[in-house]
């Protein structure tokens, strides 16, 4: 028996050593990445709000995430007296593991994917990341607090509602590829020479809105609306448990941004990947890195202490090295084979960052929806629109096949479809407006029912 | 002070503007006060403002509104004076509700700005309940006073001016004046278990403090 088990373990390790290693790497590195995303968010927020943001820990606050992580780890771990201990313990773990598991399905470049070539790629990512909702619901319930429970209920109602819209938006894009495999999806965009965001703009819009709602970001951050429900389902969590939720939230952001990038924004493809006269675009990554490095160098003498100056120099150096690495595959013939991997990774991360930047930008700019407004937006606007869009895209594809259109030519049929969807959207909005004109005190009362 | 010049705009002003506005320099109150001292006999010996002869600030009030009220309520209107050109009506406690209704509906004093009380422990009826009314159509204020002894209940005016609700609770909280007919007369600013009524003149704050310290900190005195 023991020998059999041992043998099985060896077999398992032999077959799966690479994904396992990647998994460990994800779990180890992701918190760091999330920490720096938070720092970037705070810096952006500060910039938009006419202030500086974190400046104390490290030059320009660059070590702030580490300080925060240490603080969270050594904080007192409080479990409320009447809480359901087991569930309280389980909930954050569920949340974070679902988010991390979903990351496994993503392809950061043609070379980097943990769950290689699974046939159900995009479904896997979407389905597994949706499991994180249990962490929220159970956490809210286990805290035994009204605020938490209301936050949890809001959250689950919101997630279930917007998942429908997001799924429908995904279907619209999947119609173009005919496969669920993530690599195949990107390759389809490469083959067509056009990103699906141009072919299915309405679907992209629907997914964008739904993904913000799914990750509980402003203006849909009701579950944790701090002005009403204190911190929603996280109210009673503190220290490390709380940071797990935090981690899950940002990991989820990465997941939805990656899905959108893969499906709509051409994944790891460079813009105009097959237009040879635009190959100069290959120098853009290097240029970006060099600019960042130059900025850091320029700031170095202004740092108050020697340590900070050294740190700034180190950052500049790192950026410079990255720039060289990005430059190498373009100019050095020997490094050519690494082109797809390195530049693919760069473009993918670049697009994901833009998507997340958009999230942050929204958060600092607009107020929060009220819960009934949010539900109405989901059920009365987004879901009908995305369903109609699926139909229209389907019709457009049939027409495209009939006229034998390819690539940019498909725009001839998809643009009218998008225009019709737009008209439908405006009609829905107008209808909503006339509905909203009368005070609907009753309509909102059963919004938990969806 | 500067708000007085604008007040006599409406002609039917019932507050004590008439004697004041007949004197020419409206914007110089010290001079005006000496003028006002001439026609009226001094009801009380006022503490003198340093360089000047005794000033009389409280004069009897006799205008349209007071006349109408005299006719309507008779003896219920105990006193009508004005102090520094602000009209004060002292009315009978028992008829407060009727007078309030009449003030609100007929005299258009539609807002109750403030309701409070003053404690005069040496008087027979120790409390003054003071209502500060304002009329939007006439743009004038009127002060209504009711005398009440320690155990006497004052009719609540919440039914007339809902804004009296919390203010009566506050008066109850601070003075222990019971307003009969108030929907929920509980302490509002102080904790429910508080002892005594702090704004009474005989309320010894030190004693309360010492008691609290003894009870909660277990030591003899905090002072």
């Amino acid at each position: 028996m023991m020998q059999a088990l041992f043998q099985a373990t060896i077999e398992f390790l032999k077959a799966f050593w690479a994904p396992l290693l990647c998994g460990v790497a994800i779990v180890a590195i992701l918190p760091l990445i999330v920490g720096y995303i938070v720092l970037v968010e705070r810096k952006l927020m500060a910039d938009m709000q006419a202030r500086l943001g974190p400046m104390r820990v490290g030059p320009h606050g660059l070590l702030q995430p580490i300080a925060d992580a240490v603080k969270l780890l050594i904080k007192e771990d409080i479990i409320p007296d009447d809480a359901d201990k087991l569930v309280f313990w389980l909930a954050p773990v569920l949340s974070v593991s679902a988010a991390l598991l979903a990351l496994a399905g993503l392809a950061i470049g043609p070379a980097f994917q943990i769950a290689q070539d699974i046939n159900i790629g995009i479904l896997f990512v979407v389905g597994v990341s949706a499991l994180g909702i249990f962490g929220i619901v159970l956490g809210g319930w286990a805290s035994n607090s009204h605020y938490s429970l209301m936050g949890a209920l809001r959250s689950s109602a919101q997630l279930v509602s917007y998942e429908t819209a997001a799924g429908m938006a995904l279907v619209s894009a999947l119609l173009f590829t005919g496969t669920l495999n993530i690599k195949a999806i990107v390759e389809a965009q490469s083959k067509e020479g056009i990103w699906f965001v141009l072919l299915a703009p309405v679907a992209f819009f629907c997914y964008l809105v739904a993904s913000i709602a799914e990750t509980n970001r402003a203006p849909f951050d009701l579950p944790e609306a701090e002005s009403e429900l204190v911190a929603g389902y996280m109210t009673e969590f503190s220290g490390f448990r709380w940071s797990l939720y935090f981690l899950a939230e940002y990991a989820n952001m990465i997941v939805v941004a990656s899905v959108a990038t893969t499906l709509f924004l051409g994944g790891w493809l460079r813009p105009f990947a097959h237009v040879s006269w635009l190959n100069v675009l290959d120098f853009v990554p290097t240029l970006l890195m060099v600019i960042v490095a130059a900025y850091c160098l320029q700031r170095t003498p202004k740092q108050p202490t020697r340590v900070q100056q050294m740190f700034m120099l180190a950052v500049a150096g790192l950026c410079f090295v990255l720039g060289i690495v990005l430059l190498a595959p373009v100019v050095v013939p020997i490094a050519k084979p690494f082109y797809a991997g390195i530049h693919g990774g760069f473009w993918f991360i670049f697009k994901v960052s833009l998507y997340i930047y958009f999230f942050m930008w929204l958060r600092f700019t607009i107020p929060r929806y009220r819960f009934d407004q949010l539900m109405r937006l989901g059920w009365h606007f987004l879901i009908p629109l995305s369903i109609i869009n699926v139909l229209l895209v389907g019709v457009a594809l049939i027409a495209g096949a009939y006229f034998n259109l390819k690539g940019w030519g498909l725009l001839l049929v998809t643009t009218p479809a998008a225009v019709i969807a737009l008209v439908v959207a405006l009609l829905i909005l107008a209808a909503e407006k006339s509905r909203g004109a009368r005070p609907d005190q009753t309509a909102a009362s059963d919004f938990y029912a969806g | 002070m500067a708000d007085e010049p604008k007040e006599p705009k409406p002609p039917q002003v019932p507050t004590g503007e008439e004697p004041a506005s007949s004197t020419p320099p409206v914007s110089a109150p010290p001079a005006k006060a000496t003028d006002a001292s001439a026609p009226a006999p001094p009801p009380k010996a006022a503490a003198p403002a340093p360089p000047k002869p005794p000033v009389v600030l409280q004069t009897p009030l006799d205008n349209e509104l007071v006349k109408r009220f005299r006719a309507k309520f008779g003896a219920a209107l105990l006193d009508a004076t004005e102090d520094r050109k602000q009209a004060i009506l002292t009315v009978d406690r028992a008829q407060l509700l009727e007078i309030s209704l009449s003030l609100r509906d007929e005299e258009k004093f539609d807002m109750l700005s403030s309701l409070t009380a003053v404690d005069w422990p040496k008087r027979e009826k120790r409390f003054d309940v003071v209502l500060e009314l304002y009329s939007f159509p006439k743009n004038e204020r009127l002060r209504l006073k009711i005398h009440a002894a320690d155990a006497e209940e004052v009719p609540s005016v919440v039914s007339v001016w809902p804004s009296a609700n919390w203010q009566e609770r506050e008066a109850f909280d601070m003075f222990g004046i019971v307003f009969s007919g108030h929907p929920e007369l509980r302490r509002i600013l102080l904790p429910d278990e508080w002892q005594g009524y702090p704004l009474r003149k005989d309320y010894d704050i030190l004693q309360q403090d010492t008691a609290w310290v003894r009870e909660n900190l277990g030591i003899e005195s905090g002072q």
Partner: protein
Amino acid sequence: MLDRVLFYFFAGIAVASAVLMVTRRNVVHSAIFLITALLATAGIFLQLRAEFLFIVQIILYVGGIMVLFVFVIMLVNLDVALQQIQFARQKWVALLVTLALAGQVGLLFWSSGKMPGQGLPVLTATAAERLPLNSETVAHSLFESYLLPFEIASVLLLVAMIGAVVMAKKRT
């Protein structure tokens, strides 16, 4: 070998959590164990290289139905549910049904290979890389071989959905 270990691993979890689900007093705990059982079943699907079934199991049962379950559980008052006696009067009925089911499954196993066309079909394993693509296979069988039953099922679901909406509307 690995397959077998994985199978027993998932099966063990599934059975254990199914038992725990029935015996827990706290409804939310039961729900959690039900989720675990469903996830373990999904794991078995994956181990059988039925990826599509695996993800459908997760999306539909775990991500869809169980969320609504938990949702409803939170809306009802838990204290009332705790006071009610479990296994109210159906103990013997349940036992009977379980025995009957066990007998049936036993018969199935016993008859395998004894008679042609009866019992469990014995399949020969195909190498993983030569398996047909999962979702495509499911799609073909659903939309070609079994189109009519599929459509009937969809209509049935649609009717159920409309019925639910009508019932919910009537109440308010």
